[in-house]
Structure formats: C-alpha cells, structure tokens
C-alpha cells in the first residue's frame, strides 16, 4: 500500500503539488492523469525520492520513504519512463540485469531471471539477449524497459508515460500485454499518462489532477458516469458514455434467450418477435426466420436465414460498446450472445444498453 498524506512540493515560488493525499491499495493500478504541469510526474517521482517533498509524508506499507536508504528504496521500486532510458552501451540482458546486479545477485540466478523476464514481455531471450538498444524498435525497447523495471520483482512499479512515445498500434499492443502481465503479477502500479483512453483501459483507480491537486479519484466506470467537476467532464471527453460502455462486458447486461428449434413447424411459431433466432439440436445458433414470410406446412429449418454464428453473435467477454456499435451498424434492436462453441446463451437489446447507460449516469 502506498499512502501519500498532505504531500506538498514547491519549487521556489511555484507550487507543483499542493497537499495531496492518496492511498493506493496493494496490487492495484492507479493512473495519475491530467494536463501538462498538473503535478502528476512530480507526484510519481516523490514516491521513489527522485523528488523530495517540501512537506507531508509518503509511506510504503506503513514505513516512511524518507527513513529508508534512497538507493535501497529505489532498487525495490520498478521505474519505467517514456524515453525508456536503456543504457546504450549495454546489451539487452545487461540492461535487464541492472537491479539484480546492484543487489549483488549471483550470476546464475540473474541470468535465469533475465530470460524469464524477456519471455514475460514476449521477446525471445536467444534472439534479443545480446542485442544493443540501438538495434531495437521503439516497441521492443519499451518492452525491455518494462522487463528491466520488473527484474528484481519489486512490489511497486512506477511508470511515467511508459507508452507515450510509440506509435498507436504498438501502444495498443503494449497496453494489452501489460494488462496481462499486471493480472498475473498483481503489482502496485502508479501510472502517469495524459491519454484518457489509456487511463480508462489500464486503471483500477483514475486520479485526475489539476494544478497540483486531485480533483477526482474514482474507478474508471464511476469517473465516466459521474465526473466531479466540469474540468473532469471536459477532460474525459464528450464520448464518455461510450468510453464507459467500453469498460463493461456483454455478460454484465445480457438476459437469457431461447431460440426456435430447426424442426419446428411454421404454424407452431409463437414468438413475440418478427425475426426469432433459430438454434440446432445442440443449441448452436444457426440463424433467424422472418415470421411473416413463412408459409404453413414448412419447418423453421426450410425458411431459415443461415448466418455464421461466430461472426453474427456477440461474445460474453466482448465490450458493451462494441455490442452497441454492432447494433447501430446492423440496424437491429437486439443481438444474440453465444459461447465459444456457438451455443446461444442470451441476448442484448438496445433498450437494455440505453437503460444501463442512463442508470449509470443518472445516479
């Protein structure tokens, strides 16, 4: 747990951070976000004492940082920066081994750890270990930057706009990979960014800062649903409702649904909808029928509009935002939800999304 209590930082006349208090629970990812000069980077750098606060206290698991040896403290906190800052005269392996070397680990366990970390960030140790930073792409360099920060298995990781300098496609990949790593390792992460989409995607808690103060600290969902001030509302953007829907899964709003069997006689169709869904004997989604167009004496199977379930159905883990987008695109009021085998498990309706969204923002 990281606790900042009434932390203040002045540079001469300028006030960088003003009486900031914040608790970051162990194992969560806290994003500090705000415009340039809002004090987010200063706050981050006070945690590993690259900046000393003017007043206030910072505690890690209860122990105040200022009582600890500064280098010992930093060796136990991972540190990733936007410019990466790999040592150009050292190989990838030597770079990753920096903190273990400072902690005087033996050669064998250091080498094993380096390989483990390169695997973790998705780079082949055999191919990359002996390369120099000048031979890496921007995305590869930042993966090494992350691996280097995690080398000595620190409980806390500080990341200052780590993916800010790479192209959008690479950024997207690095973000999702780091989310996976974070799910596995459960580090306490302080993450600085000015990209609200990145914040909402990565964060357990988003802390919005303005002029050295916290204006709102909330989960991404609540931040989007209830921006505390007009500044936050502007900052999260006019599409905050859509952003918020991106945070929820189809499973959160779907309702159970049934499909007609393919063998059913047309006359037996008793559906409240004009276009009921159809499933096969195993319950797999196969398509839909137009009830107005079926004539007596035929089965549902004969009047079936067949579709590919994997393409047409929503997945439970898909986002509500994508579900909405699909409905708008297809011009439909509802979409079926299927599991990995294509079995119909439920449905999502436009009305449900609307209600869900309104309830969230209206509260």
């Amino acid at each position: 747990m990281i606790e900042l209590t009434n932390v203040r930082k002045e540079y001469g006349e300028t006030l960088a951070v003003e009486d900031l208090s914040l608790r970051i629970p162990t194992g969560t990812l806290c994003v500090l976000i705000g415009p340039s000069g809002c004090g987010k980077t200063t706050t981050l750098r006070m945690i590993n004492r690259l900046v000393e606060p003017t007043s206030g206290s910072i505690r890690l698991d209860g122990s105040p940082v200022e009582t600890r040896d500064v280098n010992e403290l930093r060796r136990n906190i991972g540190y990733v920066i936007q410019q990466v800052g790999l040592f150009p005269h050292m190989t990838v392996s030597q770079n990753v081994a920096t903190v273990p070397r400072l902690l005087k680990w033996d050669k064998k366990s250091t080498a094993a750890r380096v390989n483990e970390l390169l695997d973790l960030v998705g780079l082949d140790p055999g191919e990359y270990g002996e390369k120099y930073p000048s031979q890496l792409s921007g995305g590869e360099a930042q993966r090494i930057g992350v691996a280097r920060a995690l080398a000595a298995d620190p409980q806390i990781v500080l990341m200052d706009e780590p993916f800010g300098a790479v192209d959008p496609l690479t950024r997207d990949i690095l973000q999702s990979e780091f989310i996976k790593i974070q799910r596995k390792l459960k580090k306490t992460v302080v993450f600085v960014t000015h990209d609200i989409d990145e914040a909402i995607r990565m964060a357990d808690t988003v802390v919005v800062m303005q002029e050295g103060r916290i204006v709102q600290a909330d989960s991404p969902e609540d931040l989007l649903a209830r921006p505390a001030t007009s500044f936050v509302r502007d900052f999260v953007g006019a599409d905050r409702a859509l952003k918020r829907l991106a945070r929820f899964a189809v499973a959160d709003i779907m309702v159970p649904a049934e499909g007609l069997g393919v063998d059913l006689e047309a006359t037996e169709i008793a559906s409240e909808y004009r276009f009921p869904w159809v499933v096969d004997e195993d319950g797999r989604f196969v398509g839909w029928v137009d009830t107005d167009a079926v004539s007596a004496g035929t089965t549902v199977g004969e009047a079936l509009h067949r579709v590919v379930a994997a393409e047409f159905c929503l997945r439970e883990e898909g986002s509500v935002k994508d579900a909405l987008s699909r409905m708008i695109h297809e011009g439909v009021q509802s979409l079926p939800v299927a599991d990995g085998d294509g079995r119909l498990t439920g449905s999502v309706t436009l009305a449900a999304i609307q209600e869900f969204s309104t309830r969230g923002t209206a509260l």
Partner: protein
Amino acid sequence: MNRANRVVQALAGLGVVSLFFPSIVAKANRVVSGDAFPLWDLSPLFAALLLVAWVLLAVSVAGRTGPRVPAWIAIGLTLLHLLIIHMAPGWLDALGVTYSRISLGPHMWIGLFSVAFVLLDLQTRVRNRLFFLMVAAAIVTFAFSPAVQFLSTYLEFLGKRDRFLYEMGRHLMLLGWSVGTATVVGVGIGIGAWRRPILESPLFAFVNGVQTIPSLALFGLLIAPLAFLSMRFPVLRQWGLRGIGFTPAYIALTLYALLPIARNTYLGFAGVDPAVADAARGMGMDTKALFLQIYVPLATPVVLTGIRVAVVQAVGNVVVAALIGAGGLGSFVFQGLGQNAPDLIMLGVLPVLAMAILLDRFFAVIIPLLSPKGIPVQP
C-alpha cells in the same frame, strides 16, 4: 556530382598544373642552388603518362564507378612519381649533367600531395588498404633504388643521423609530456565544468582564451616570467626551470592541448542522454556507480577524440617550440630556413607530417577498441 568527386577533380587539375613546374633539381654540391629540370626535358614519355593518368582520374570520378577505379589510378600515379625518382639519375646522366645530389622540384611535391589527398578523400574502406599500399611502395623505392643515395634530404639525414634521432626523440618527449599533462588537467576541467555549471563559463573562458594567443607569442610570453622565477629562486633552476628550453615549451604546449580535451570531455559527459541518467538513478544506482558505469563509458569515445585532436595539433605545435630552444624536429626547419637549405627544412617537415598522419591513424584504430560496444563511434 557529389562533393568528393569535385574535390578529386580539383586535385587532378592541380596535378596537371604541377607538370609545368620543375621536377628534379640537380646540384653539384650542398651550397649551390642547382639546375631545375621540368619532366618534359627529362622524359617526355613519363610526362605524357602522368598527364594521361591525371586526366583519367578526373574522368573516372565523373561516372558512377565507385571509389575503386579512381583509387587504382591514384596508386598508379604514386608509382609513377616514385619511378621518376628512381629514373632521375639516369635521365640526368643522359643529358650530360654533372651532379652530386638531387632535390625534388615543386612538380614532385605538388603531385605527391595531390595523390595523398585523393586517397584520403576516397571512401574509408578502400582508403586504408590503398594508403598502406602507397606507403609500402615508397618504402620499397627507398630501400632498393640506387637513386636514393643522391636525394638531398636523405643525404642531409645521413650527415645528421645522430642529431636527427635525438631531435625526433625530443619531439616525441615534448609531445608526450604536454599531451599527457593536458589529458589529466583537461579531463579534470571538463568534468569540473560539467559537474559544477557555475565553473563552466570561467574555465572555458580561460581555455578558449589560451587558444587565441598565437603560439609564438605564448612561447615568448612565458620566457620573461620563467626567467625571473629561475633567477629569483635558484632551487627552481636546479630543477631545470629556465626562461627558454623545455619548461616554457612544455607549459605552452600543455595549454594549447587543453582546449580540445577539456571541451570534448565536457561535451562527452554533458551529452549523455538525461533519460539514461534518470533511469539509472531511478533504479537505485548510487553516484559512484552512475559515474563509473554510465557516464564514463558513454563519454569515453568523445574524450578520446579530444585527445586525438590534441595530439595531432601538438605534433605541429612542437615544431614552433624549437624557436625557444626546446629542440625537436623544428630545429631542422628553422636551421634550414636560416641557411636557405630547403633540403634541411624537409628533413624536419617530412617526419612531422608522417608522425601526424600515423598518430591520427593510430587513434582511428584504438578509439573504437577502447569504446564500449553498442554506441556509434566516428571513424
């Protein structure tokens, strides 16, 4: 057409012009001025060959042939010039000239220097190999050609062999002491200016200031105070401190060598990417480890380049030190100037030139070896 090609063509033009100057000077003895012979009088065939080769060189760089063809033409030109030296006694005999020594005329000097610069201007890869070929050809000529015993600069060397070796040693000693001292002090100044920004401006004002004083003036300026100190404190005189000779030369040469070393040291350390230092500090490197493991290795190639510049400059500056009695190869130069003996001047100038080129090549080889891998080093 790129810049390098234009330079080579200008040098080729210079080579053609050189043919209008006397090629060989035949002298009856050391004192007389001798008779100068243009190459056309000695051997029209060689004159024509040279002319063709220079023109070919200029043409060869106009196309897209790469550096290989012009390099081979340059080697051919070198061999032609060396052959002229080899053949000269025979040609003079054929003309019925009596001589005891032969000097090279302006044509030969201009021609040889043009070829050398052409080789330096061609691309590095070809350059090194061919440069050594050229040196090897020259050594073979001087080792085996009977014509060498008539070359006046060689005769000067034979007459002054012991003094030549002594002055050469003295030249190298002055060079080593001054650049060695300047390296210690200059690296100190560079790091001091980097660590304490408040020192940067006064330190560099001093080092830059020294550089603006003409070398002869600086040598002269040191004579008076050093002479005074030496008179006032006999102890110092016992230690070898005098107004002229080694001490003022050593001080002045050291001061000159300071600027490139101090400036490059400062640039080397200040040029380390702040993000690299921030990452290192953020991961818990203490000040000592940060300095020794990050700053020093990253600054090394830049500092060594400063030392390289200082050494090459100092080789030339030591020549001037001869004027205040410090010795070195410059003493032949100034003695030759005084006696109006160009051969003697050459005896001083040629080894200085060779020394500068060899030391420069030496650093070109060792700087990449001493620099850490992974960072770009200029060749």
